[in-house]
Each structure stands twice: as structure tokens, then as C-alpha cells.
């Protein structure tokens, strides 16, 4: 016999002798044989146990076979229980039909042929066993499906929360590179949803300068099935572009076929800017060191030459022509000295700051420029609202305003107005108190592309006339005072107005004789042509 799990076979007959004979016939099947002497007993057993086959006599006192079959069938648990009727009487076809209507699966007439009964019961027992196995398998399958579904749901939820929590923009694309899913950050940054940027719609967010290259890169990667990487700007919802390092990996199925791409875009704008700033500041520092070294190497021989010419010029043996030449040489030497002094102006003439009147200092600078002002036909407009006496180092402060006013005058070769403002002021964002000097000119203006460079060393728009160091040095000096220097260049009524404004945080000294009152420089020397607003 097979090592199968035995099933229960219920035998119902009011005659114990018959039950014994069925037991003998079915014994070799190796199943559990249960005996019931009446329909009632049979029902009790049915309710207690799982029955595979019911073998029952049709004619029994109390409840007959047909009635019992009806009762059994009413119970949902026994809908499919196999019922075999055994009967010595009622063997008409109508009787058989009646039996089948009640769900009998077979009908055996007396005399019972043992082999036949055994074979029939065996078939139904086996069928029941198979059904049971199938049900078990089904239940197991359902359980596993449920488990897997839950796992998937969890992993899907995990994936989404992960994809939405990373700082990157993330997306998934089909094997051809068309995108079908974006994370929340993508939507937040771009201000678009999956609908707008689905497929290849993201191209609208690409900077036009990079689009072609990026698409080619994606095509290459997707046809080769190799990881993709590129760096390009993407437009945010505010319309500005930020730089992203973008990467995508192919996801393959078991056969190695690419089924999708998973990609991210990492915002590297800040990193890029920091790198650029670092390079720039390193370059500036290197230039500063270089300028210092060069200036120092020039200064030593320059002093000797200046002294030599000083002596030569005064020498009695010189005739007029030689004196003229030495005078020329002296002037040129002064130019060299001026340049190295500019690069050298980081030195302070005294260790301790002294009271400096910006008012007087500005007048000195204007005085130095007076010839140029006349030559260039520039109208001067001074508006000093403060004595501007602060603690500082006069030479370097003078250097700052000599540069600013000198630049302003040079920017007006064909005439214009130079306006100098001096007033006490509070810096808006920091609230620091201090002095502000603004120098306005109506000259050539500052071109947009030069705006970022004008404070860099060796940047000059004056061709051979400038050293390109003036503003750089000026800013260095102002920064030593923890001050700021900024400029604005506007086109107004067809002309340019450029303003350089220096803010020096300092307390204005009041107890000195106020040069504003005494020198009479307060107010306008010439009527202002500017609007009074």
C-alpha cells in the first residue's frame, strides 16, 4: 500500500453484520473505517470528523438513506462528500435517479461484489485525499501570495519614502531612456509633475546649451546599457538654473536585459561655486603675494636711482639740456614709484591710527586732480554733510579716494559732472555706524561684463594707462577698515551715472575743530545739475 495519509470512511447500516462485512471488504485499503448503526449516529460522526466517503444503506429505520443524504447535503461542509448507496431493494432506475439527485456519487446493489466496492471506495478516498492536498496547496499559495503582496507593498512604500527622503532628484526611465516616474523632490524643484515631464518632457527643463550633449550621452548609455553620468544645469520652478551631477544605473532582469533605469540628480551648485570661489581667492592671494614680491624687488633699486637722480639734478656741472633730460627721468621715476606705491600701499605709515578728516582728505585729492578737472571740463559738486573725522591712516585712505576720484575724472574725457558725497550713515543690513563717501560721475559707465571683474587685480579698461591695481588696492584698504566698497552704473536719460560708494564703520570724532564749518566746503561749489530727489 502506498504511504498515504489515511482518510475516514463512514459506513452506515442498521445491521451490524453488514457493517462487519464492509469492514472486511474495505480493510485492505488501509483507511480509517468508522461505523454508524443509524442515520443519527452517522450525523454525529460527520460533525466530529472529516469524512472522505459515506457508504450507506438506503433502507434504514428512523432516517433512511435518502433522508440522511438530504441532511448531509444541506450542510455546506459536506457538499462534496462522496456518498455511495448500497441497497438490496429499490433498484429501479427511478430509485437510482433519486439517489443521484441527492448527491450520491454511486449506487451499489446487493449482492456486493467486494472488489467492486473496494475499487469504488478507493477511487473516492483517493479523490478526497487529492482534494485535500489541493486545498492545502491552495491555502499555502494564498498565504504566500498574501505575504508577498504585503512585502511588496512594504518595499514599495519603503522605496517611495526613501526616494522622497534623499536630497537628490530621482527618477526611473524605460530602457530607451524615457522617464515614467519622478520623486517628490523633482516635482518640488522643477515645479512640474510627472504629466508634464513624462517621457522626454524633461528636455524642456534643460539648458539649451547642454541639451544636445545630454541627449546624446543618454542615447549612448542606453544603447550600451552602461551607467550614465553627466553634469548640467536644470531649470527650477523659479526660472533659475542650478547645476546637477546626474547619474543613472541600468536595472536588469534575470536574463540580463535592461528593464529600467534608476537615476538621480544631485545639486552641486553650491559645491561648484565654492570651488570657483576657492580657485579665485587662491589666485587673488597668489597675485597679491607676487605683487608684493615684485614691488619689494623694485623698491630697493628704485630708491637708489631716485637718490642718484636727486643728486645728479642738482649737480653744478649739468647744462640746460642735461638738466632737461634729468627732469624727464625724474618724472618717469615718479611714475614707477607711483605704481609700486600703489601695490605697496598696504603698508601703514604709522603704527597707530590718527584722526583723519575725510573732508580735508577729499579736498586734497580734488586739489591733486584740479588740472585734470579743468582739462576735461568736468564740473565739480561737493556735498559734505560731515567733517568725517575718523581714526585711520591718512595715506592709505587718500589712496582709496585718489583711485576713485581719479577713475571718475578719467571716465569723463569729454566733460561731465563729478559729485562727491560725504555723510554719516548707518549700514542697512548690519546697523553699524560709520561714514559713507560716494563718488558719482557721468562718464563712460561700466559695462555689464566688466562689473564682476573690476575689483580684480590687473583688470583695467584703460589699456596702457592703468595698472589694473587701483580698485583692487582700494578694496583691500577699505576691507582693512572692515568697510565696504560697491558701485552702481546706470543709464539715465541717455547718459551714464556711475557711483562708487565707500562705507567705513567708524565713530566720527566731534571734539576737533569742525572743518565743515571752518573751511566753508559744506554745500555746493557749483549748482547741482542732479535731481534733488
Amino acid at each position: 500500500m502506498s504511504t498515504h495519509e489515511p482518510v475516514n470512511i463512514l459506513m452506515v447500516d442498521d445491521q451490524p453484520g453488514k457493517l462487519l462485512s464492509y469492514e472486511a471488504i474495505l480493510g485492505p485499503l488501509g483507511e480509517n473505517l468508522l461505523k454508524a448503526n443509524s442515520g443519527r449516529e452517522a450525523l454525529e460522526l460527520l460533525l466530529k470528523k472529516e469524512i472522505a466517503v459515506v457508504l450507506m444503506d438506503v433502507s434504514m429505520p428512523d432516517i433512511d438513506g435518502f433522508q440522511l443524504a438530504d441532511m448531509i447535503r444541506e450542510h455546506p461542509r459536506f457538499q462534496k462528500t462522496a456518498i455511495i448507496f448500497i441497497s438490496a431493494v429499490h433498484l429501479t432506475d427511478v430509485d437510482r435517479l433519486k439517489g443521484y439527485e441527492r448527491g450520491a456519487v454511486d449506487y451499489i446493489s446487493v449482492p456486493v461484489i467486494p472488489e467492486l466496492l473496494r475499487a469504488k471506495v478507493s477511487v473516492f478516498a483517493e479523490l478526497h485525499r487529492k482534494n485535500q492536498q489541493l486545498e492545502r496547496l491552495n491555502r499555502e499559495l494564498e498565504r504566500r501570495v498574501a505575504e508577498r503582496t504585503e512585502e511588496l507593498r512594504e518595499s514599495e512604500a519603503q522605496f517611495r519614502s526613501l526616494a522622497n527622503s534623499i536630497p537628490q532628484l530621482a527618477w526611473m526611465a524605460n530602457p530607451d531612456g524615457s522617464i515614467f516616474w519622478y520623486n517628490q523632490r523633482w516635482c518640488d524643484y522643477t515645479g512640474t509633475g510627472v504629466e508634464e515631464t513624462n517621457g522626454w518632457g524633461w528636455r524642456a527643463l534643460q539648458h539649451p546649451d547642454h541639451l544636445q550633449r545630454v541627449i546624446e550621452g543618454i542615447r549612448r548609455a542606453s544603447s550600451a546599457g552602461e551607467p550614465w553620468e553627466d553634469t548640467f544645469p536644470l531649470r527650477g520652478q523659479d526660472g533659475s538654473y542650478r547645476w546637477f551631477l546626474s547619474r543613472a544605473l541600468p536595472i536588469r532582469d534575470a536574463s540580463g536585459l535592461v528593464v529600467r533605469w534608476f537615476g538621480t540628480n544631485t545639486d552641486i551648485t553650491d559645491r561648484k561655486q565654492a570651488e570657483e570661489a576657492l580657485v579665485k581667492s587662491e589666485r587673488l592671494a597668489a597675485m597679491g603675494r607676487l605683487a608684493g614680491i615684485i614691488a619689494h624687488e623694485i623698491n630697493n633699486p628704485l630708491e637708489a636711482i631716485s637718490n642718484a637722480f636727486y643728486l645728479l639734478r642738482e649737480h653744478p656741472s649739468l647744462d640746460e639740456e642735461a638738466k632737461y633730460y634729468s627732469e624727464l627721468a625724474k618724472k618717469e621715476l615718479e611714475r614707477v614709484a607711483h605704481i609700486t606705491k600703489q601695490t605697496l600701499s598696504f603698508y601703514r605709515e604709522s603704527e597707530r591710527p590718527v584722526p583723519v578728516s575725510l573732508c580735508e582728505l577729499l579736498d586734497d585729492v580734488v586739489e591733486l586732480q584740479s588740472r585734470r578737472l579743468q582739462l576735461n571740463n568736468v564740473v565739480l559738486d561737493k556735498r559734505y554733510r560731515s567733517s568725517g573725522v575718523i581714526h585711520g591712516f591718512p595715506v592709505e585712505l587718500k589712496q582709496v579716494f585718489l583711485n576713485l576720484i581719479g577713475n571718475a575724472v578719467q571716465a569723463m574725457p569729454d566733460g561731465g559732472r563729478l559729485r562727491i558725497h560725504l555723510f554719516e550713515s548707518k549700514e542697512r543690513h548690519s546697523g553699524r555706524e560709520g561714514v559713507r563717501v560716494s563718488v558719482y560721475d557721468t562718464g563712460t559707465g561700466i559695462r555689464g561684463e566688466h562689473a564682476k571683474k573690476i575689483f580684480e587685480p590687473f583688470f583695467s579698461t584703460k589699456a596702457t594707462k592703468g595698472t589694473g591695481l587701483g580698485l583692487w588696492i582700494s578694496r583691500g584698504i577699505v576691507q582693512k577698515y572692515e568697510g565696504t566698497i560697491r558701485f552702481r552704473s546706470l543709464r539715465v536719460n541717455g547718459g551714464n551715472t556711475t557711483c562708487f560708494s565707500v562705507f567705513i564703520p567708524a565713530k566720527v570724532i566731534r571734539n576737533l575743530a569742525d572743518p565743515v564749518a571752518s573751511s566753508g566746503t559744506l554745500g555746493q561749489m557749483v549748482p547741482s545739475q542732479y535731481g534733488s530727489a
Partner: protein
Amino acid sequence: MAARKPIILCVDDEDTPLLLRKLVLQKAGYDVVTAGSALEALKIAESQKVDLVLSDHLMPGVTGAELAQQMKAQYPHLPIILLSGVNEIPSGAEFADTFLSKVEGPDRLCQAVAAALEGTS
């Protein structure tokens, strides 16, 4: 009666600049003694009357600022002018009365010398 010419002790490790500086100062009406190093300058100051020290800062061995410190320790009222071609004020420069850039030229040099002597008279 004519006053005695002020005596200036000029210090520099380089001969030519030292000589030219001496000639400029002589032309301006001073008596000048020279020293090629800080140590030599200290020896001279011990042995003779000096009214002002004009020293280069960047010299091998003892620097001008260090010389100024030592001089001031011994002669607190002796005016000292420090000359330099460098663009940063060296540490110790505060021991000198005046710090002057070499590029200022002979006129400024003479003015600074005169002003320093003025302060002591």
C-alpha cells in the same frame, strides 16, 4: 654762531644705496656716518655722538626693527627712522619713531629726518 650739524647714523647692508642716501643727507646739510650692519651701528653709537639713526629694516642678522629696539633700550631719546621696501609693517617696527617706505623718495626722506630731529630739539 653756526649750530653744529646734526649727525645721522645711516645703516644698510647694501653699499650703493647706503652711499647715495648718505650723499642726499649730506646735501641736505647733515653729517653722516655709515654702518654696514646693525652690530656696527651699535658700536658706532657707543663711541660717538649720534643725533638720529636711519636704518634699513631688512638686513641679514640683526634687522632694523631689532636694532631700533636695542638702540631705544640704551638711548631712549635717540630718534630712529626705519626704512623699508616691504609692503607690510614688520613686527618690532613700533620701536622706531617713524616707518618710511623707500619709494617715498629723497624729498620725503629729508622731511622725515627733519621732523624727527625737530621732535627732539
